[in-house]
């Protein structure tokens, strides 16, 4: 069991007040691990209720891909960000066990790897929904109605709040700071797909493509 602290400033004050505190837990299953998530204020507790043996990522073709990446840099450490991306592509998130594996492969310490993982916001430190949705709500998009897009997404996905996964395990919706497509407000990312010009009205149509 370990704790995940959500970003200190993850929602605007108004949303926070309107939302109140949700303490009701919910459960969902991924391939071989069962998670129980309870949202208490800003803290989410994840309990690994079934400990499966760790299955290494860097074997076979993935290992060869990493070896090719290593050739690009004079140090092994430099392949850390690419290696973490490979873990996330394969597993959907980066577990403590995966961090230990990456540390062994690149001759670093697990603590060092964790320090890097926690610095970068795109690495998931806990499982997320099948479709991970990031909505840009920084000033330029905010001017063009990004917060309405967030509200529509929360409503239509069934996610109870930002950062929480919907009960069916399909969606996780988060706010993100500037996606770099300010002229095409509001940009959202669904997994690796980058969508532009999303409005609150278009949200149901967009979600139909991601079932």
């Amino acid at each position: 069991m370990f704790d995940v602290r959500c970003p200190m400033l993850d929602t605007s004050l108004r949303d926070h007040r309107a939302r109140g505190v949700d303490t009701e837990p919910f459960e969902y299953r991924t391939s071989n691990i069962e998670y129980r998530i309870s949202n208490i204020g800003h803290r989410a507790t994840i309990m690994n209720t079934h400990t499966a043996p760790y299955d290494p990522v860097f074997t076979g073709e993935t290992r060869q891909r990493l070896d090719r990446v290593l050739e690009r840099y004079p140090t092994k450490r430099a392949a850390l960000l690419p290696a973490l991306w490979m873990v996330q592509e394969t597993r959907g998130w980066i577990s403590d066990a995966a961090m230990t594996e990456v540390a062994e492969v690149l001759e670093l310490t697990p603590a060092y790897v964790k320090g890097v993982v926690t610095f970068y916001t795109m690495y998931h430190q806990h499982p997320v929904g099948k479709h991970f949705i990031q909505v840009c709500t920084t000033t330029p998009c905010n001017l063009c109605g990004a917060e309405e897009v967030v509200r529509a997404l929360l409503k239509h996905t069934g996610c109870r709040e930002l950062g929480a996964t919907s009960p069916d395990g399909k969606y996780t919706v988060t706010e993100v700071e500037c996606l770099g497509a300010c002229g095409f407000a509001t940009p959202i990312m669904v997994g690796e797909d980058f969508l532009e010009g999303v409005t609150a009205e278009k949200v149901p149509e967009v979600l139909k493509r991601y079932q």
Partner: protein
Amino acid sequence: MGYPHQPHAKETVVLSQYFGDPEARTYQGWVKRGGYAALRTALARKPAEIVEIVKESGLRGRGGAGFPTGLKWSFMPKEKSKPHYLCCNADESEPGTFKDREIMRWTPHGLIEACAIAQYAIQAEVTYIYIRGEFTEPLAIMQRALDEAYREGVLGANAMGTGKRLDMYLHRGAGAYICGEETALMNSIEGRRGNPRIRPPFPAAVGVFGMPTTINNVETLAAVPHILNRGAAWYKSLCLSNPKSTGTKLFSVCGHVRRPGNYEVTMGFPLKDLLYDLCGGMRGGRTLKACIPGGSSVPILNREETESCLLDYEGCATQGTMLGSGGVIVFDDSADMVYQIMRLARFYAHESCAQCTQCREGTAWVTKILQRILAGDGHQKDLDLLLDLSEQMTGKTICVLSDSCAAPVVSGIRKFRQEFEAYLTGARRPAGAGVAV
């Protein structure tokens, strides 16, 4: 060309000539459009000659600081005793800016050519193009173009058949605004947390992997092949106001304008014309209230200042702001400035690397105080407190992220004080989505 719009007569199209043209993305298409000719001529010259041409053109950094590019290159050691590196900064994350994304999406070979020229000029073997993790499409396009360039012999052990080695790799970021800061970017390439480094030593002496390194923005580099093809004198002649600002610049206009997008104009172009002519003015017949001309990190301009601002490094400085990265954020009279400034401060609080106390604490407290004001719980002293905090956050940290947070707050309070006071006196209550009642 203001993709996705038709080009406007007042634009000077150089970098954006092939935006919207899918054929220009391929190697064959790029060669057909005169691509890789500049690289060929560059490889036939001495590296020092190329540095001289770029110096002569007056090209300055387009990422925000506006440092002369040729001069930056000339800081690299002349006698090479260690490997040299070039880093291309494609970590475009400044709110309001989306120009590098279009350069990579439409002219990937243009950027590869530009990097190769710069790499040769500073005698580097390897270029790392650092692309932010969210740019999945530009990443895929750039990777495809790089594979093509290797296959066609443009890059590799025998680049363009000259026997010179030019290697180029993409490095994907993972969601950190601060990695656009040059020393943080180097740390990120090395597989570290993206904390900026203290300077000196400067990157030209001790850069990525401890070796001499030059870091340039995508747009800066993209201008280099054009300078080599058409001459430094031509580039220098592209100037409408101050001779210290030359060439063209891509301005990404967003917010409450009728036609947001990228527009390429000559340095010294009036901001007023950009907003009212090229972008078609405000949406829904509203009036302009404020404008941030250089991405979220620069001071806000009010309407009068916006209408008299000239878009070059000196013109913006005259109005008390900066050209920055050229991300123009436009606010019309419906915008709630207090809410939007809070939203900017929240951005910096989220993106602070937390290395320096002034930044870690300052950005978070500025956000909290602004949220308190917005909720109707502000004190009369809060504005003075914000100004005092902002002063403590300026010029005291390793990088300028904390200064960037202070700039919109200070200029916002100075220019839109009545809006802050309306919240403090209870004359205005919070409304939805940052819209004033």
